[in-house]
C-alpha cells in the first residue's frame, strides 16, 4: 500500500511504434543468418580441400526443379497473406495448401538427392570434408524448411477450420517473413554449393 506520484500527463501526438512481431522475427532472422554464414564460410574454406573422393563435381546434380518449387512458394505464401488480409478465407487456404505442397516437393527432392548420394555414391558426413560440409549446410537449411512446413501446415489447419481470420493477418505476415528468409538462404546455398564450388 503506497502512494506514488505518476508522471505528468500531456497530449502526445500520434504515438506509433513498429510491430513487435515483425521486429522479433527480424531479430531471429539476423541470428539465423549468422549461423548460416558460419556454415557457408566453412563450406567455402574447405571447398576442394578433401583428401579423398567423391568430389562435388562427380556426384552433385543441379536441383533445378525443386529449387524453382521452393522459390515459387515464396510467392504463394505472399498471396495467402494478402488473401487473408482481405478476408477471403477459401483463397487463403488454397494458397497455403499450395505453399505446403511446393515446400514438400522441395523436401522430397532433397531426400532423394541424399538417398542417391549415400547409397549410390557412398558419400556420408564422415567420408571427407566435402561430405562433412555439404550435409551440414544443406541439412541445416532442410531443417529450417521442415520447421517452416510445420508452421505453415498448422496455419493451413487453422484456416480450414475457420479459426484464422483477418485479425491474424499480421501473424501470418510474420510467418511468411520467416519463409521468405528460408527461400533466400536457399538461393545462397544453391549458388555456393551447386554453382561456384562444383
Amino acid at each position, binding site marked *: 500500500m*503506497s502512494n*506514488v506520484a505518476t508522471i505528468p500527463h500531456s497530449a502526445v501526438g500520434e504515438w506509433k511504434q513498429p510491430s*513487435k512481431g515483425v521486429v522479433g522475427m527480424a531479430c531471429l532472422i539476423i*541470428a539465423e543468418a*549468422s549461423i548460416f554464414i558460419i556454415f557457408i564460410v566453412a563450406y567455402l574454406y574447405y571447398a576442394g580441400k578433401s583428401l579423398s573422393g567423391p568430389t562435388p563435381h562427380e556426384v552433385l546434380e543441379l536441383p533445378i526443379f525443386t529449387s524453382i518449387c521452393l522459390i515459387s512458394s515464396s510467392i504463394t505464401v505472399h498471396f495467402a497473406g494478402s488473401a487473408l488480409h482481405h478476408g477471403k478465407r477459401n483463397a487463403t487456404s488454397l494458397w497455403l495448401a499450395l505453399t505446403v505442397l511446393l515446400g514438400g516437393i522441395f523436401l522430397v527432392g532433397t531426400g532423394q538427392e541424399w538417398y542417391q548420394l549415400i547409397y549410390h555414391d557412398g558419400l556420408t558426413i564422415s567420408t571427407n570434408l566435402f561430405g562433412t560440409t555439404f550435409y*551440414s549446410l544443406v541439412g541445416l537449411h532442410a531443417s529450417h524448411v521442415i520447421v517452416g512446413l510445420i508452421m505453415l501446415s498448422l496455419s493451413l489447419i487453422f484456416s480450414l477450420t475457420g479459426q484464422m481470420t483477418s485479425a491474424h493477418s499480421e501473424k501470418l505476415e510474420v510467418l511468411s517473413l520467416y519463409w521468405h528468409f528460408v527461400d533466400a538462404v536457399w538461393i545462397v546455398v544453391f549458388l555456393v554449393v551447386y554453382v561456384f564450388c562444383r
Partner: protein
Amino acid sequence: MATQTTAVVDRTVHAPRGRVFDVVKEWLTTVDHKKIGLMYIGYALIFLLIAGVEALMMRIQLAVPNNHFVSPQTFNQLFTMHGTTMVFFAGMPILFGFGNYLVPLMIGARDMAFPRLNAFSFWISAFGGFLLYYSYFGGSGMYGAGSAPDVGWFAYAPLTARVFSPGHSTDYWTLSILVSGVGSIGTALNIVATILCMRCPGMKMNRLPLLAWLYLVTSGLVFVTISPLTAAQIMLMLDRYLGAHFFDTQAGGSAVLWMHFFWIFGHPEVYILVLPAFGFASEIIPVFSRKAIFGYPAMVAATVGIGFISLTVWAHHMFTVGLGAPGNAFFTFSTMVISVPTGIKVFNWLATLWGGKIHFEVPMLFSLGFLFQFVVAGLTGIMLSVSPFDWQLGSSYFVVAHFHYVLVGAIVFMIFAAFYYWYPKMTGRMLDKKLGQWHFWLFLIGFHVTFDLMHIPGLLGMPRRIYTYEADRGWAGLNMAVSIGGAIQGIATLIFVYNLVHSYFKGKEAGADPWDAWTLEWSTASPPPAYNFAETPTVESRRPLWDLKHPNDPDSKYEG
C-alpha cells in the same frame, strides 16, 4: 500541454500469504518480467559463488610452489569450469536479469514484448547451467565416476576431438553452451522488441534512458555473436558424434578455423558483458553527481560505434598463431581503433562528474572504482593489441591480469553498484550503508592486491593455466600475494551476500524514490506492482522525474 500531477493508489490485491507450494508454483510459472529478472539474478549469484569458489581453489593451489592441493586434472577442470561458468552462467544471466527487470520499467512499459518467450529463455538458460554441472556426475558416461570438462573455456581443437577428450565431459560443455545460447538469443530478441515497440508515449529514441540504449546494442551483438558460437558448437557435436571432420586435422580439417569461429564470438562477447555495465554507470554517475549525463548523443553514437568495431577485432586473440603481416597490421589497427569510442565514453562520464555535487553513496563508490579500473584495463588492452608485444606476453599471466581487470574491476564493480542502486526498487528496502562501505573498501583492496600484482609474474614469464611451478622462478612471493588478495575479495563478497539477506528483513524502508533520481522506474512503488504503472506514463524529456519535480524548469525546455 496540460501537465498534471496525480497521486496514485497502489491497487494491488494482497492475497493472504500462500503456502510454500503456492509461492513456488507462482515463481515457476510466472511470466512477469520482474520475477523473471529476479530469478535470473538469483541464479547468476549462485553460479557467481560457485565459480568464485573454483577461483579460490586455483589460488590456493598456486599460492606456493610445488603445491599438491589439487591434482593437475582437477586444476584443468577448475579453470575450465570457472571460465565457462563466469561468462555464460554468471555474467550473462546477471546482466539479462537486470535488463529484464529494468528495461520495461525505465521505458514505461507494462511488461516485456513476449512474456512467455521470456520465461522460456530463462528456464532454458538455467537448464544449460544445470547441464554443465551435471558433467561432474555424468561426464564419463552414466556408469563412470564422472568428471567435468577440462578443455579450457575456449576449447581449442584438437583437444576436443574424441581421441583426446573421451567420455562425455566435453559434450556437456558443448550442450550447456548451446542450450544457454538459445536462451540468450530469446532474451536479446525480447529486449530489442521491447525497446523498439513498447515505449510509453513521448519516449522517443532520443529520450531513451542510456541504459536502454546500451541494452539495445548489447542485444544486437548477441544475435551476431552467440549465433556463430552456436554454429561452431553444432559442428563440434557433428565431429564428435557423427564422425564429421570440421576440426579434424587428420582428414584435412583445420584447428585454426575453430579459433576463428570461437573468437568471432569471444571478443564481441566481452563487449556484450561490458556494455550493460556501461549502462549502469550512465544511470548511476549522473544521479550521484546531481547533473544530467554529459553528451547524450555522443554516448549513443559511441555505443553503436563500439558495437560495430567490436566485430572486427577478434584475431587479436590469435596473434601468436601467426597471422602474417597484413593480418597482424589489420587486427592491431582495429583493436586500437576501438579505444576511441571507449575513450569518448570515459570522457563523458568524467565531464558528468566535473562540477557536479558528488554524493559518495555506495553505488557511486563502486562507479568511481569502475571508472579508474576500466581505464587501466583499456591501457593494458592496447599494449596487448600491439602484435609484437603480444607475441611475448600472449598466454601469460599478463593477459589474465588484463581481462580480469575488465571483468572484475569494471564489470563486477558495476554489478555491485547496480545492486546497491536498484536493490531498494526491487525489494523496497535499502542495502545497509555501513556494510556496503566495508564491502567496497575490502573488495577494492583485494582487487588491487590480486590483479595489479598479477601483471608482474606475467611480465616475468609465468604462463597461464600451469598447475604448479618451481620455487626458483622468482614468482612465489607474488603468487602468494595474489592469492591473499583473492581471499580478501572472497570475504568482501560474503559481506555483500550477508548484506543482501540482512537488509531484506532489517533494511531501512526505501520508499519509491530513495535517491532522488530521474528515470521512470522511480515513479512507481518499491517493489513495483505487477502492472508496473497504474497509468501509462507520458514523457517529454530524458529525465521525466526531473520535470515532475521541477515543473518550472523542465528539461524539455532545453532538449532539442
